[in-house]
């Protein structure tokens, strides 16, 4: 068996003296693992950093073998983010979520493409833009894996306008009027996720992160007995810690 693909490095585990087991999220072969000879060597250590885009060739005797990877760096995304604490936290969260949530060898080209757009934005866009994209990416991931939310219309009235809340149980949107006294028990739906075109302000991004966290935890990670990856929790902590310093994500 032999295939070639492009992928993002998700994690690297040291194996033996110089080798490593690499977990890649590839476009046409989904999340795939393989042994890399000299994976912890000086030459490859920089290449096998989480978030880097690589061109990989996998070979194994059988499709279900662990197999071997040979990799070449295509885009050094992690090197561009080392100095930016918030972007680095987001990169860690993306890699940890994909590494834990994606089934092995199940192709999801849509998630792969969305991840590519998100990681490029992490390097090139201001935090307010990529944070909005990040929260959309989480909801997109849920949707693509079959756990999507219905944010198109109100679950109670059927209205398509004025959606301000999401039911934490069903994941359906609810208007402010329909929510009534139940509002404090619902999750807030930020306007930019409900279809508004304005750039989100800080509170809305916080709502977007809370929404993603709740449904990732409830729908994707609860059954796996692991809980939300630590990197995702650290991203949210970093977001709130950065509030005073990152002018770009302060209230506009």
């Amino acid at each position, binding site marked *: 068996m032999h295939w070639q693909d492009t992928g993002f490095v998700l994690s690297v585990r040291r194996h033996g003296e110089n080798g490593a087991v690499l977990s890649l999220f590839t476009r046409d072969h989904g999340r795939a693992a393989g042994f890399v000879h000299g994976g912890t060597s000086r030459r490859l250590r*920089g290449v096998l*950093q989480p978030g880097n885009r690589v061109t990989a060739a996998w070979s194994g005797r059988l499709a279900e073998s662990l197999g071997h990877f040979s990799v070449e*760096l295509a885009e050094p995304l992690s*090197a561009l983010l*080392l*100095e930016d*604490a918030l972007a680095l936290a987001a990169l860690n969260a993306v890699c940890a979520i994909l590494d834990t949530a994606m089934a092995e060898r199940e192709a999801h080209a849509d998630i792969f493409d969305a991840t590519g757009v998100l990681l490029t934005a992490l390097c090139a866009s201001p935090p307010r833009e990529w944070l909005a994209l990040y929260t959309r990416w989480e909801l997109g991931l849920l949707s693509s894996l079959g756990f999507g939310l219905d944010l198109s219309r109100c679950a109670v009235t059927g209205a398509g306008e004025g959606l301000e809340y999401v039911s934490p149980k069903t994941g359906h949107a609810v208007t402010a009027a329909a929510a009534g006294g139940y509002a404090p028990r619902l999750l807030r739906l930020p306007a930019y996720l409900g279809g508004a075109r304005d750039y989100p302000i800080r509170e809305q991004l916080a709502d977007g992160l809370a929404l993603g966290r709740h449904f990732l935890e409830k729908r994707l990670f609860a059954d796996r007995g692991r809980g939300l*990856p630590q*990197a995702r929790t650290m991203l949210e902590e970093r977001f709130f*810690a950065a509030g005073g310093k990152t002018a770009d994500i302060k209230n506009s």
Partner: protein
Amino acid sequence: MADGELERLIALLARLPGLGPRSARRAVLHLIKKRETLLLPLAAAMEDVAEKVKTCRICGNLDTAEICSICRDPRRERSLLCVVEEVADLWALERAGAFRGVYHVLGGVLSALDGVGPDDLGIDALIERIGSGEISEVILATNATVDGQTTAHYITDRLSSMDVKVSRLAHGVPVGGELDYLDDGTLAAALKARRPF
């Protein structure tokens, strides 16, 4: 074939980094050939190290005393503290001879994958040490890897409320490095961190 003690020595040496059973066997044969000049001094030196070497209770360096020679040295600048991942990094900085302050060894980096959290590293001891007030600048010399820099950012956060300057090592073109031979990641980081000339 060797048996008994010899086989045991070969098996133990084969567990060292860079050695396999074949090279361990060669090393053992060489040691036996040089019994007086190599084998006995090596055995004595290893026994000494096993008995005497301790972890410094201030910085985490390895030394024969409770407090290592760097922490004891009165000529060191105690207001400068360099934070490194491992003792090997401390030794590398000492070999360069460019740093005259004191160190703090974390003993690893934060890693969600390996389940290493802030409590598993010497970060609380570091904060306590900095809180004593003697230190005016903390230099974060963690590796230029995702985990290393995540750890550096975490420490910076923890230090944000303290009256201490925090700096980190530069990332970029190494001395003697030719651009043509540099890896893409280093080049990208060097370009991003360019400065006025």
